[in-house]
């Protein structure tokens, strides 16, 4: 699998580390932390997920990937904020 880093270009997945779903918001208080940590969706289909390009430009990316066939349809720098 390759990921299209917006800075570096198309790179092999082994340059990146995976964090998971980019959707959930980290709660401001302890309230809601259980749900944030444990209650995650596991969608079959398109997912926005966080990847870190540690062996490249050291940027966090939000990658759009289809969990059914691993096709990657987009990537942007996470530093731009949520879209």
């Amino acid at each position, binding site marked *: 699998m390759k990921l299209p880093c917006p*800075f*570096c*270009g198309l*790179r*092999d997945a*082994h*340059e990146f580390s995976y964090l998971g779903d980019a959707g959930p918001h980290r709660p401001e208080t302890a309230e809601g932390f259980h749900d944030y940590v444990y209650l995650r969706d596991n969608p079959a289909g398109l997912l926005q997920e966080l990847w870190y390009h540690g*062996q*490249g*430009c*050291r*940027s966090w990316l939000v990658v759009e990937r289809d969990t059914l066939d691993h096709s990657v349809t987009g990537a942007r*720098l996470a*530093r731009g904020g949520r879209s």
Partner: protein
Amino acid sequence: MLETAQIYGRHGVAEGLAGVTAEVIEGLSIASVAERRHGAAGLAELMAINYGLTLPRRPAHVGAGALGAVAVGPGRWLVLGAPPDLGRSLHGVASVTEQSDGFVPVTLSGPSVLKCLAKGVPLDLHAAAFPPGSAATTIVAHIGVTLWCLDATPRFALLIARSYWVSFMAWLIASGAEFGIEVVPAKGRG
């Protein structure tokens, strides 16, 4: 384990011209430059006015005389041949960190340099895909490397973290052995 003293000299095929020549550069001053929030315009202007350097905003290397810069990430560069006053002159627009001891610069040339690099660099380095000035930060034999194409010979420059450079040279010497590889020390230039 390869000893530092064993790195220099001719390795592998001993007859004929070396297929790969590696110059290990000593004494090059290197600084990392990271733009501050809202500092992008000021940084670009100061680098252009003070040093005649246009910092690339994509993975690329630019040079102006003894000075060079390679983009390693969004808003981050390594400046090569960095003048001692760089931090002061970029005050407020960028964070400047001395890195001269952090990296070992190596230049690679020779008729078999592309075949040699292809054994470890997971990128297409052919001139059509990676012409002079192109740069990349990637991984070679599990070791992080920032590299760029210096000219169409082709000749490449690499920066390897100093604590990994002996391991990197072990990979390079093993990979270049079939072509004959010559490793020599050289004096620093931007």
